[in-house]
């Protein structure tokens, strides 16, 4: 049974005479232990969608089931109890400026049935978990962005939730701090079994920790799947755009174009993009190509990453040889599950 089950969610806002549809018939299932990335540009409706999970945003229609509970059937009091089981962190941290770090983390526990010493122990444990034990008496204004987000994470975990909603939590942070926060989320996922829903416009963040991805555009989920599937077999142009940004492919293509403007391809040369997934990496194949087919390969760009524990590689290369030989090589690579595509300067054509 999924921990979060959103079915046919619609969210519309009325503004004067017109109705704005923020979320359009979106359904989402998140399983226990998932880190589910939801990507999309600003205004795609991802923040609105994630807010329907803890009903900070009431959907206009659809059903919200969390831990088997129909959230929309709850009274205000019951809803508050359920919300305690769903932590949430935000882009701008939303800490209380007039409370210390300790006070912030203790705030969600103010009505909890805890003795003062148990409360202190709990808050200190949480601060230890996020690596801020020595900052308990500081005020948020004295902390860096990354430290503030750590406090926010500790606060979100105060009621021992099984779910953490992260709304652009790393978008206001620099790349290094972003990676530290993502590593912390990954750790919490592994150690506490925390299910995480990660809203972001940065595919990098999703790539780093998510195991599943949904792509949103104009209020709808246009594509979803495992991280590996989405990255290696994207179906929609928007998804490809996000991935190309995350893998620096866009930048590489610009560089390759500049290079080829100066040194145009010869008649017997072809520009090729080679993509491979998994352990049967392309390198041994590439090295055999010259020997077997008399086609030489000049590597212009190469990138390899580990997605969900699986290596995924991408190269841009110039294949030099007889056209028939090059075609044979490309077919042979494609037969070995190495996705090979001819590139023209305008874009890609499938081989």
């Amino acid at each position, binding site marked *: 049974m999924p921990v979060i089950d959103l079915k046919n969610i619609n969210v519309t806002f009325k503004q004067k005479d017109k109705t704005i549809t923020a979320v359009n018939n979106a359904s989402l299932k998140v399983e226990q232990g998932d880190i589910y990335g939801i990507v999309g540009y600003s205004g795609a409706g991802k923040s609105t969608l994630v807010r329907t999970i803890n009903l900070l945003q009431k959907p206009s229609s659809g059903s919200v089931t969390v831990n088997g509970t129909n959230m929309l059937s709850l009274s205000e009091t019951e809803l*508050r*109890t359920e919300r305690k089981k769903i932590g949430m962190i935000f882009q701008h941290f*939303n800490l209380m400026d007039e409370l210390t770090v300790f006070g912030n983390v203790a705030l969600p526990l103010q009505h909890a049935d805890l003795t003062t010493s148990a409360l202190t122990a709990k808050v200190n444990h949480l601060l230890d978990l996020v690596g801020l034990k020595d900052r308990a008496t500081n005020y948020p204004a004295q902390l860096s962005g990354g430290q503030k987000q750590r406090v926010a994470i500790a606060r979100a975990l105060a*009621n021992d939730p099984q779910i953490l909603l992260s709304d652009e939590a790393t978008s206001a942070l620099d790349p290094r701090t972003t990676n530290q926060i993502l590593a912390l989320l990954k750790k919490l996922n592994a150690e506490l079994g925390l299910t995480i829903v990660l809203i972001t416009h940065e595919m990098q963040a999703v790539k780093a920790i998510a195991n599943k991805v949904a792509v949103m555009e104009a209020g709808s989920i246009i594509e979803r799947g495992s991280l590996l599937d989405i990255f290696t077999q994207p179906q929609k142009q928007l998804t490809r755009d996000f991935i190309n940004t995350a893998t620096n492919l866009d930048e590489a293509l610009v560089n390759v174009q500049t290079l080829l403007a100066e040194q145009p391809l010869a008649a017997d040369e072809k520009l090729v993009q080679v993509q491979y997934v998994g352990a049967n990496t392309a390198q041994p194949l590439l090295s055999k190509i010259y020997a077997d087919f008399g086609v030489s390969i000049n590597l212009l760009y190469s990138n390899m990453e580990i997605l969900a524990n699986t290596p995924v590689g991408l190269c841009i290369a110039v294949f030099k040889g007889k056209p028939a030989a090059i075609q044979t090589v490309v077919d042979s690579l494609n037969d070995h599950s190495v996705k090979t595509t001819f590139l023209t300067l305008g874009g890609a054509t499938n081989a």
Partner: protein
Amino acid sequence: MLNWIQVHFPNIYALGWTGDGGWGTAIFQTLYMTFGAALIGGLLGLAFGIGIVLTADDGISPHPLAYQIFDKVISIGRAIPFIIMVVIISPVTQVLVGTTIGATAALVPLSLGVFPFFARQVQVALLDVAPGKVEAARSFGASNTDIIREVYLREGHSELIRVSTVTLISLVGLTAMAGAIGAGGLGTTAIVTGYQRFQPDVMWLATILVLLFILIIQFVGDFLARHQHHGS
């Protein structure tokens, strides 16, 4: 000292310290009216200010009708000039206090006069609290009461102290105006005794005392707002 005052400022001396119209009495009456009305009008204003923020469309407890009522009462209350308000509500004052003259009677128009002003200021101060803080509190299951206390009032308290200072100062001004029509206090001393009886020294001293009072309020207000604030 007293001798010196008697010689150079006979009018000031003649009023004495205690008794009807004495300096001590006038100062006490001004303090009494200011803080009395601040208490009553302040609580009313705080209630209305919180009410209008909560019931707004984007508030934590939207209620269009209640919002309209709060908004209209505040707007109309703010629009009625104070000196007219004193006259208009004098029948109410008569019923509540039994008289329309004196410092206690003045508390009624002063409270009613100051609360819409304060309510609007409270509204602005509370809206200044980042909406994200309220959202965070809702996300971890805080009740509306928690949110008012732990988010709006605490996170906005520095701003609330600041607007309270402004309100107190304008309230001192209102007590002087009430003084012109018989409320007592330094306003009566300055206008009735000083101005209308041609005793400029009395008028000036009363003015200086009011000014001093305002300076003290401003100083304390600024101090509190600054020293209880940890925000960026």
